[in-house]
């Protein structure tokens, strides 16, 4: 076991997969000579050369499209898009091409690309650099969308994503790249599907994904001090969603809070609550609570930014509300 930062875990996964399979290449802005905005590809350019670690111009839609074209004939491109805000420029090739080519061709072709991109608020990056947008991708048939919450999954899920034959969107987070975690020295894989119970509890279920899992874990500690036992679920995959794990937990705890860093309308929480309504409505003792961002573009001002984005205390308060304690 060694402690690795999130970015190091990603780099290790790239490195091992590129060493194993010549068809694996990395593409993105500043990922090669410069080593990557988040260092997630550092050292790879020196090791694998410019043909396999490709510094692209600032042309998100088309370099993603080039990755898709290459993937259609057997390559395995891992594309870094510097921010999920910029991934909006690539929605055409991701949503209209990558997600649909297998289907339109009646199963003749597949598009095994991986698109890695961080979504989320960091430190006063303001409205055009703070989008989360997971909900946009999770609503698209033909994509897989995963949200590794730490280095263990960041490494293991990237390895799986590269080997998977489907287009996979990996949503990372600006605030997680330096997060550390012990991970095994030997190679391992973490499956792309399935939510994970990261903390067991019996009174209430707190559901998070990506960064908000950490808010849920912090809230669970506070609840424990109040004598409330919270179970925490990391969704891990937003497309598809593991409804079975959620159902089992809700049938055990009968209360639920969903924590999302994104704005609420038409979001992850809406989808989770719909699933709960359909799968285990009668197991609920209280109305599900959504903890989410204010429905505004993310403000630059630090005080306003803080007010707009949910924190661990908001999740804690949400749990108390669900349990009728406030």
């Amino acid at each position: 076991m060694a402690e690795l930062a999130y970015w190091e875990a990603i780099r290790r996964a790239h490195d091992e997969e590129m060493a194993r399979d010549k068809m694996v290449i990395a593409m993105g802005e500043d990922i090669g000579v410069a080593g990557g905005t988040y260092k997630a590809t550092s050292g790879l350019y020196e090791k694998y050369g410019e043909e396999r670690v490709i510094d692209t111009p600032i042309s998100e839609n088309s370099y993603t499209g080039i990755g898709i074209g290459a993937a259609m004939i057997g390559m395995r491109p891992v594309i870094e898009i510097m921010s999920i805000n910029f991934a909006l420029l690539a929605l055409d090739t991701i949503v209209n091409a990558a997600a649909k080519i297998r289907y339109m061709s009646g199963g003749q072709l597949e598009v095994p690309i991986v698109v890695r991109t961080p979504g989320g608020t960091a430190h006063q990056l303001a409205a055009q650099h703070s989008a989360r947008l997971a909900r946009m991708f999770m609503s698209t048939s033909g994509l897989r969308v995963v949200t590794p919450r730490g280095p263990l999954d960041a490494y293991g899920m990237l390895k799986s994503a590269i080997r998977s034959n489907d287009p996979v969107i990996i949503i990372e987070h600006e605030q997680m790249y330096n997060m550390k975690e012990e991970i095994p020295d030997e190679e391992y894989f973490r499956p792309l599907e399935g939510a994970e119970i990261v903390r067991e509890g019996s009174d209430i279920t707190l559901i998070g994904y990506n960064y908000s899992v950490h808010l849920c874990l912090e809230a669970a500690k506070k609840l424990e001090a109040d004598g409330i036992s919270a179970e925490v679920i990391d969704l891990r995959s937003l497309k598809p969603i593991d409804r079975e794990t959620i159902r089992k937990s809700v049938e055990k705890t009968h209360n639920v809070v969903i924590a999302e860093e994104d704005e609420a309308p038409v979001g992850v929480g809406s989808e989770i609550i719909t699933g709960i309504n359909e799968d285990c409505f009668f197991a609920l003792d209280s109305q599900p609570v959504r903890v989410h961002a204010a429905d505004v573009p993310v403000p630059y001002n630090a005080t306003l930014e803080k007010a707009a984005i949910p924190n661990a205390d908001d999740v804690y308060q949400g749990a108390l509300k669900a349990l009728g304690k406030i």
Partner: protein
Amino acid sequence: MDNADKKRLLREMIFYRRFEERTFEAYMERKIGGFLHLYSGQEAVATGVLEMAVTGQGKDNDYVITGYRDHIHAIKTGASPSEVMAELYGKENGCCKGRGGSMHIFDASQNFMGGYALVGQPFPLAAGLAMGCKHKGTDQIAICFLGDGANNQGTFHETMNMAKIWNLPVLFVCENNGYAIGTHINRSTAQPDQYKRVDTAYCMESSQHDGMDIDNVMAAAKEAIDYVRSGKGPYFLELMTYRFRGHSMSDSKGYRTREEEKEWEKRDPIKLYSDKLLKAKVLTEADIKAMEKEIDDEIENVIIKFAEEGPEPKVEDLNKYVLDDNPDPRWIGPLQNN
């Protein structure tokens, strides 16, 4: 090119025209749904360019990709006309099992990598196919056919730039028919000569040629394909052509004059080529008549029959082909909680 090949080329173009005109009828009978974009008038472009490429050899073919006006490109690359027609009928025996339809013809077994409805989207996909060829070290190239209108998309500019800086083996064929649906090129495009849009801007080799005379097209295409295949990088080939039908089936053509149409009809690629072959005594009027009869019989008795008799896809199969239907549980899971 010997006389047999010349006859074959003429036959192919007549076949393509008749195939498209027959889809028009089937559309009127509501056998074909959705949007249908016919290629009539532009046959010399796909036929001539692809005649110079590697086609009909299965997985050894060059890679071909295009927009929504795609039936003929698919067939010339090697797709079975019966399967293309069955796809238009939405049948399970169609080349995409009825999932794609007219605008999304694919035949991976012949490296025909699809028709795409999003104007301009195939540019980067083509460059990606070329990148794959280069990476694997095969001497295949990618050929991308798109219209003049597509050149106003961002993907055009982004892709021309990347294709050039990465020296990708890709041939862009611009089928300049003067219109994007009902908008004349002079009203949409600052530089009407499309080949000029890449030469100084992206330092790309490019040229413009008549696209109605197939001999012309073949000569230009041969030069362009040789250039790309030799490893010199991308090439942009602009071919001047005209579509005889409306943009799609719902087009009343109110945006162009009958005089303009008549001028172009004088240069019908099939007429030009058959006149040439008649003059050179490669064949006779009677040969052409016989050819046409044979083609119509084939279309009716083989192709339409195949499409008509093909089974409907099963509703139970609705969710197939969305993601990998047999995923490896090592990568996909699901994760087990104890």
